Every structure is written in structure tokens, then in C-alpha cells.
């Protein structure tokens, strides 16, 4: 009986250790994201799976054109996948003849499918602190495995 208990505790310890390693990998190195919705078509279709990395977010080295995963500014439990259209201090066209400057510490996110995307055009610039990771490549469906690089 005691042997079983010791064995059980040992197993739980291992599960805890490996769980922590997995948490750190997904939180600081990279993870997989399932995208849904039409806002990034034709680059990313609904139900594609992306591999995303957290390193360039942690080192603050994001560029214009990168596809990023961020927390939705209007609902923190939801995540959005958009392309960085402008970095802090840059000018962005918001209307026919109106321009807006992206404030410090914010980026301007837009979906590739501009006719069907809720993005910075509706909720304004997004704080960089909300960005979680940068998309590296599409890994599912297997027919469409591609690297996603900035345009």
C-alpha cells in the first residue's frame, strides 16, 4: 500500500515537472494556434493551424507586415490574428483624405480581407502589450504548408 502511494506521488511529481516545461515552452518559445474566421483571407483561411513564436514579441522586434496573434482589445478572452499595418509613430490612412498617427506603444492591426475584418479601423490602435506571438508558418492543412513572411 505504501509502495503504491510513493509510486503515485512520484508519477504526479513527474507530471508536474513536465507540465511546467510544456507551459514554459508554449509561453516563451512557440505554440500552435487554430484560426477561425474570414478576416485574414486569402493568406489564412478559416480552420488553418499556425505555428507561432513568442521570441520576437519578448525581444520587441516586430516589423511592419508581420502577422501577429493578439488579445482582442474589446474582449480579453478572445484572440485575434491580424497583420501589423503600422508601427508606433507612423502615419496611417483612415479615410479618403484623413490620416492618423499611431501613438507610442501601439500598433495598427488590419486583416488582409479588408471588407470582412474587425480591426484597428473599428477599435483604433492596439497596445503592443496585447500582442502574444508572431505567426511563422502555416502547418495545417498539409496541402497549404507555407512560411508566412511579411509583405
Amino acid at each position, binding site marked *: 500500500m505504501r509502495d503504491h502511494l510513493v509510486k503515485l506521488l512520484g508519477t504526479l511529481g513527474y507530471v*508536474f*515537472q513536465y*507540465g*511546467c*516545461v510544456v*507551459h*514554459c515552452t508554449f*509561453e*516563451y518559445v512557440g505554440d500552435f494556434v487554430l484560426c477561425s474566421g474570414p478576416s485574414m483571407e486569402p493568406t489564412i483561411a478559416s480552420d488553418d493551424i499556425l505555428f507561432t513564436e513568442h521570441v520576437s514579441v519578448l525581444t*520587441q522586434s516586430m516589423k511592419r507586415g508581420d502577422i501577429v496573434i*493578439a*488579445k*482582442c*482589445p*474589446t*474582449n*480579453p*478572452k478572445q484572440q485575434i490574428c491580424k497583420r501589423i499595418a503600422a508601427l508606433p509613430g507612423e502615419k496611417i490612412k483612415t479615410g479618403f483624405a484623413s490620416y492618423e498617427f499611431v*501613438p*507610442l*506603444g*501601439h500598433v495598427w492591426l488590419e486583416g488582409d480581407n479588408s471588407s470582412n475584418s474587425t480591426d484597428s479601423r473599428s477599435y483604433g490602435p*492596439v*497596445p*503592443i*502589450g*496585447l500582442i502574444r506571438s508572431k505567426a511563422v508558418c502555416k502547418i495545417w492543412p498539409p496541402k497549404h504548408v507555407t512560411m508566412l513572411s511579411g509583405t
Partner: protein
Amino acid sequence: MKIPNFFKNLIFGVPIGITIVDSVGYVARVDGISMQPALNPDKNTTDYVFLNRLAVRSYEVQRGDIVSLVSPKDPTQKIIKRVVGVQGDLVKTLGYRELVVKVPDGHFWIEGDHTGHSMDSNNFGPVSLGLLTAKASCIVWPPSRWQIIQNFLPTNRVPLNIKPIIRVF
């Protein structure tokens, strides 16, 4: 045989530490005067607070809580402020470009207790809830300041929509 064992402990020990810091909480030093008198009551004391991350897992905050969040102006910086309004509240501002602000969905209104000496929502407007990182639950150092941080909101900062309206005719 000793060195591999040390590395094995390191490979598991570091992730365990990081995971606990990420999911339970950690102790942090409070810098600056923006939260006087609740934190750092005079310039000679530096408070250390326990930042509870379990409490904000579901992004639920109450008015009057002291929370830490990523600064919307500089993502490398963390700021500590008091929650004044949650989503849907009508907040009377102090020096913002509008006199009364309705806090949008998924946002909250934060202010430092030291009015006028604090970079807060009166400066940059309502803040997205996604920037929230933790709730300050107690002061752990120095020993003379040991206490649990109480939920408190000055009566003159209570949002207009929950304030009992007294009309004098």
C-alpha cells in the same frame, strides 16, 4: 556523475519556478509616488507587494482593487494603479479630453491615488483588460507595513452610474 545531475535539476527547476511565477503570483517592488498614500506612503519607504495572478485569471476586477498592468504607452513597463471604473461605467475624469467617459466593453478605467502625480487613464484613456497582469493583494515588506490591501474607492471617484443621486430642490 555530479554535473549531469546539477544540469538535470536546472532544466526542471527553472521551468517550475517560471510556471509558479506565471500562474500563482510574485513579489514586486513599488516604484514612484503615484499610489500615495496607499503604497509608498512617504519617500523613505519602499513597499513590496504580492501580486496575485490567480485572482485575475478570468479578467474579473472590482472597482477599488489595486492592480498591476502592462503600460499601454510602453510595453516593457508595468504600472500599478487602482481600478476606478469597469466596463459600462460613466466615469467623471480629472483632466482628460472629455469630462465624462463611458468605459467601453473589455476596458477599464484606472487611476493612481496621488491625483496629478500619476500617469493613468486621465492621460491615456480607458485601458484594455487584456493588459491586466495581476492584482496586488498584500504588502509583504517592510514588516511595519504588513497588511492585506483592502478594496477602497474614494467617494468622490465612484462612477456616476452607481452613485446615489441626491438632488436638492
